């Protein structure tokens, strides 16, 4: 079973515990500027949105890398091999989502590697805005909410899941 980070921005409070957990896992210090996951604050809309690498099946970063420093493991995770990476940053141009970035202090690129199967961000999130789930069922919670509205609304008193706006 492949697992993925599933992000529900509606639950995010902007506390940045995910960023701290990520940086501690990777850098052994609390340093949000080195976090592989970032929370963006769209304050005029009152929305906080965590965002990170989604481990594309066919990854642009991997295909663009001229030295084959990015490899795929059994869980589908795209890993940067620091001993091969030359810091050319071409992957940062190729990635359509901006989720692979250059780390000036090491001269290598950094990206989410799902912490070898137990993502620290999901563990740290106090509101379950970030969860680690079976990739094939990632949408089921949302589907269930809509299903309740479509089929069983009157009995359950279900409301549209987009409750915040």
């Amino acid at each position: 079973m492949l697992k993925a980070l599933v992000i529900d921005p509606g639950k995010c409070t902007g506390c940045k515990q995910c960023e701290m957990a990520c940086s501690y896992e990777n850098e052994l210090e609390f340093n949000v500027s080195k976090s592989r996951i970032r929370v963006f604050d769209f304050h005029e809309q009152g929305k906080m949105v965590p965002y990170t690498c989604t481990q594309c099946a066919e990854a642009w970063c991997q295909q663009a890398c001229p030295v084959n420093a990015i490899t795929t493991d059994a869980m589908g995770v795209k890993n940067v091999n620091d001993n091969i990476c030359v810091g050319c940053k071409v992957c940062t141009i190729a990635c359509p989502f901006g989720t692979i970035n250059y780390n000036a202090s090491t001269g290598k690129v950094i990206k989410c590697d799902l912490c070898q199967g137990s993502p620290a961000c999901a563990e740290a999130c106090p509101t379950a805005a970030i969860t680690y789930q079976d990739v094939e069922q990632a949408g089921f919670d949302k589907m269930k909410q809509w299903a309740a509205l479509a089929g069983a609304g009157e009995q359950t008193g279900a409301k549209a899941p987009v409750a915040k706006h």
Partner: protein
Amino acid sequence: MGWTGKILRIDLTNRTVKSEATNKEWAQQYLGQRGLATKYLVEEIDAKVDPLSPENKLIFATGPLTGTAASTGGRYSVITKGPLTNAIACSNSGGYWGAELKFAGWDMVILEGKASSPVYITIFDDKAEIRDGGDIWGTSVWHTDEWIKKRHQDPMIHVSGIGIAGEKQVLYSAIVNDLHRAAGRSGVGAVMGSKNVKAIAVRGTGGTKVRDGKAFLAATAAGKKVLQGNGVTGQGLPTYGTQVLMNVINEAGAMPTRNSRDVQFEGAHDISAEAMATPRKTDGKPNLLTNQACFGCTIACGRISKIDETHFTIKNKPEYWKASGGLEYEAAWALGSNTGVKDLEALTYVNFICNEQGLDPISFGATVSAAMELYELGILTKDMTGGIDLKFGSAEALVQCVELTGKGEGFGKELGLGSARLTAKHGRPELSMASKGQEFPAYDGRGIQGIGLAYATSNRGGCHLRGYTISSEIFGIPEKTDPLSTVGKAGLVKAFQDATAAVDSSGLCVFTTFAWTLNDIAPQVDAAIEGGWTPERLVEMGERIWNMERQFNNRAGFTAKDDSLPPRFLKEAAKTGPAKGLVSGLDTMLPEYYALRGWTKDGVPTNETISRLGL
């Protein structure tokens, strides 16, 4: 480890910046933030200094847990001598700015002297610069934030600064960071304005290390679990914010209303948390959009609100049709119940302006309330208010007042003096609901006896956050005491004051103490820094800080007679509710409090107390 070990000292007069080592010996005695910065201040300034003169200093200070994964570990405090009170001032703020300062590599920033013209300061990691602020002087906090990010092409910068109110030295102007988090009280914004400093912009790319990573993660995870499992921090605050208090305090008969003439407000429900979450009749949307956390906070009590676009306050002002910081309990009370205004949308707008221009909503609302009483008595007239019909309950009058005070214009100049100076100017000083010149917050000292003593003895003037006995007297945390009784309240106030001084020095938010005791906090502090921090050591340090602040105030000229409440609380009984017929029992509580503190009957720490605490 925990501390960065570096302090940034900025001499505005000579336009120099320098880095110096954090005094480690003092850090072991005073921890950080409130305690450590106060130690620096009392060592470096004369207690009798004019707060708005170049001789006063303004310190922005983090705690050892600021910028760590400890829940709520993002706080900073601003420490100075306050212009509203002439006493020690220490105002605490959340948001993201404090953690960013830590990530830039600094424990504290000390501002001294006065710039010859308006400036702003940038701190980009270890590089600090004083820059020309002419382009942003005369503009709001919100404009300044946007301008600085654009000017330096970095949206990740965090800005802490003042609006026009601070520039005009409104005596309760605030320092606001991240648009709507504020070091709100005692007029710290006016001190920044007096130094010609508009803002401090910070960007840090470093990290915070802790002494023992494994122990730290275990202690902070345990702490988070306690917060999550607690009814107040796990459910009440995230869902309702501090506004969870509105109906509770009103029912307790301790809701100061119309300048504390009444203790219950008939419109409380209209301005409560429940009202904020209920869809409006006009547009079908609720006032409250979502909750938001400050840096590192797993409680997330912050309110993000949107005002009804058709409301009279903003219908022709699209710039306010966006989400921003909504009403906390203190603001909803000060702007609402205390002025008799029950228009939730108007209160939200007034709160927006307090954030935009940097005003303390508590002192602002309480000053308007005192002015409304003067107006009702015919002492203030329409001629004197510039045409404002300053009646209790008038949302229109309140809105006019905030717009003028935020810019220090017209009748707003008078309101900007604060209630103590305003009422004294008109010969009725007893109508100011304040201690040491600072207005009381949202709890009446007749309906909740302990908080009256906490107000009277607070080192920064009338304040709930120096010793929040409401926890015990209303919520039963850590144990229930009778709010209508004075028995045991001296000890309760002292215990809360000392513990709070420790929390305020750590980098954590005092709201954690709805769930945490120092037994939860000590292991987190201890894992972050050297020193063997136990709950006992934290309490002792809190007491040391309290006495240090007290000694400063005594040197500044305060005496036992300043540990007082206005006559209204001592002579006019509560008219309704559980406290009906009661006045404050301050006279019985105060001598007991002095004795417990180890102070003379004149309120001065004895030599024995001073030497016991190593002062």
